[in-house]
């Protein structure tokens, strides 16, 4: 049995016409001799009656001051995919094909117990196989599973977090050893850049698992990185295709799986959409620098703040925090007094931003009132707000001598201020002001993708 997993996102199933187009693709696969397993997302986007965001807002609207329990929120969110699954199965039935709808739990998807962001532990695919062997098309609700058995109780419904239906498709494909997983969306494959910025961005015919995971992590929205990572772990070919055309799309595979098609030297240029705030702590060239850094990290960890683009120098520490956490971070840091040494040898006080705030001044006055019991050092924290990151994904190039110079030259020549850089085996990234993002994407795309100036 050649099992083919076909996943359709929310915009692919948001109207009877679109569902029919999706269903015809499934029927064609069935007629071509495949055993299709269809994975669907909830119908439509925010505002549509059964979209995930609509269901969340409905629950929250009962009393916005009382957050719903994560368990109940998962139960609520899972309804969107369940409705979509039943609708798709019935659509197939109306077109003359026997189909069966399964929730994530009925499909045997077992997850850990982290509501809202569960990970797939294992899949018991007996039910899916049973229905496939009976000649039915199986439609599975994306984005959900059930928790591990808890003391003999019925398990809870869990959801898999953002991009959860892509994850479901890959996981089901892995468990069934599918010949391929096809992710259908409203674009015709993986592009070399965001087509909203580069309208003539190319569609890549083939891309490696690592590259697609990297571009997804660096901001591209075409496929969730967890789906790519599962496909890579289990070596399942993954296709990104358009629901509304018959174009070939993009094959995501291993280097060996590319079968003579050369993987690109430059995969593309991505940018993250969320703003970030970059902080530079002027700690000074002092012996206690590692201790101060550790205390900063501890405090932000306790506040559950993610840090990235970490950078050290002989006298500074720098990192970025998500924009939505900045207010909290600012409140924590500004005017913070930290003893240094064990027993304390001196105190440091943090001043966030150019001008001393009222909070800082009050703290400083109180410290001054203590007299000179311990020496006090001020640590100024420079704040670069409204930044974002632009990345060149180029696994074959990122460590090649001269490429970082070309990357920076391209940006400098365009008058773009580069606030920081980051590099890995897969990519070169820069932190720029949000107002420069589109220009940075354009000039990097032109030089590295269009002109291939590195060659």
């Amino acid at each position: 049995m050649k099992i083919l997993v076909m996943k359709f996102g929310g915009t692919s199933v948001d109207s009877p016409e679109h569902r029919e187009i999706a269903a015809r693709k499934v029927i064609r696969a069935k007629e071509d001799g495949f055993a299709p397993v269809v994975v669907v997302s909830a119908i439509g986007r925010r505002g549509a009656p059964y979209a995930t965001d609509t269901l969340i807002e409905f629950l929250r609207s009962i009393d916005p001051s009382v957050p719903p329990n994560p368990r109940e929120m998962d139960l609520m969110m899972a309804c969107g995919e369940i409705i979509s699954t039943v609708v798709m199965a019935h659509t197939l039935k109306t077109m003359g094909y026997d189909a069966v709808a399964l929730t994530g739990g009925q499909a045997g998807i077992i997850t850990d117990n982290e509501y809202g962001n569960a990970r797939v532990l294992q899949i018991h695919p007996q039910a899916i196989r049973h229905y496939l062997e009976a000649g039915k098309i199986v439609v599975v609700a994306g984005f959900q599973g059930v928790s591990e058995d808890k003391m003999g109780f019925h398990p809870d419904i869990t959801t898999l977090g953002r991009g959860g239906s892509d994850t479901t498709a890959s996981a089901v494909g892995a468990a069934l050893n599918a010949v391929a997983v096809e992710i259908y969306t409203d674009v015709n494959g993986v592009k070399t850049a965001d087509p909203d910025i580069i309208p003539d961005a190319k569609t890549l015919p083939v891309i490696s698992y690592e590259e697609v995971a990297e571009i997804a992590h660096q901001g591209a929205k075409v496929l969730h990185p967890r789906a790519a990572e599962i496909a890579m772990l289990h070596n399942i070919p993954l296709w990104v295709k358009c629901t509304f055309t018959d174009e070939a799309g993009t094959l995501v595979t291993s280097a060996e799986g590319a079968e003579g098609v050369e993987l690109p030297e430059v995969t593309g240029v991505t940018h993250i959409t969320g703003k970030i705030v970059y902080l530079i702590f002027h700690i000074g060239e002092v012996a206690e620098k590692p201790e101060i850094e550790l205390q900063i990290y501890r405090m932000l960890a306790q506040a559950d703040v993610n840090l990235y683009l970490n950078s050290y120098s002989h006298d500074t520490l720098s990192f970025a925090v998500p924009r939505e956490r900045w207010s909290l971070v600012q409140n924590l840091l500004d005017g913070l007094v930290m003893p240094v040494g064990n027993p304390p040898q001196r105190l440091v006080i943090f001043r966030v931003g150019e001008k001393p705030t009222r909070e800082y001044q009050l703290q400083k006055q109180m410290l001054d009132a203590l007299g000179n019991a311990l020496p006090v050092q001020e640590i100024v924290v420079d704040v670069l707000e409204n930044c974002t990151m632009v990345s060149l994904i180029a696994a074959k190039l990122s460590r090649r001598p001269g490429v970082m110079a070309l990357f920076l030259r391209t940006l400098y020549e365009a008058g773009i201020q580069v606030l920081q850089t980051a590099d890995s085996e897969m990519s070169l990234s820069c932190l720029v002001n949000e107002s420069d993002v589109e220009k940075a994407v354009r000039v990097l795309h032109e030089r590295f993708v269009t002109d291939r100036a590195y060659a």
Partner: protein
Amino acid sequence: MYEHLPQPRGRRFFIEQERGVTDVRVEVGLAHVRVRAGSGERGLQNHLKILDAIAEQGVSISLVKIHHDWITFAVNQADVAKVSQRLEELALEYKIAPDLALVITIASNMRESAGIMAQIAEALWEASATIIETGDSHNTVQCLVPEGRAFAAAQALRRRFRLVEVAP
């Protein structure tokens, strides 16, 4: 009785990679280069001059960071002589810290894991491994530390992230 002992990980996940840290690796034989490039337009021109000069030598660089007055990067220890020679020719102030190693912490989706950097810094502090520079990607945090402390740092990280089995 042994509840406080860390439990080995990675036993339950068959489909998806377990969340959190999954491995720690060490790469030895590195050096860290710090060059005073200056600031403003002169700084930008010097960044390019420095990177071009290093590239002409066929030297691969990593952990490139731009600081107020400096540009810093890591090179293989074997390339230090070539790098020094070019920087001397450019007549720029520079410092090279030799005998370093990269301790690489690997995790699935580092950027959704608050507190990992704190745990890494704690482990390296315990191992007396001073962090010279760091880099991070979506699945790694790389810390450049003195080579002599790198393996102690890796062990401390493995203990902290429960990557080693602890006998009851």
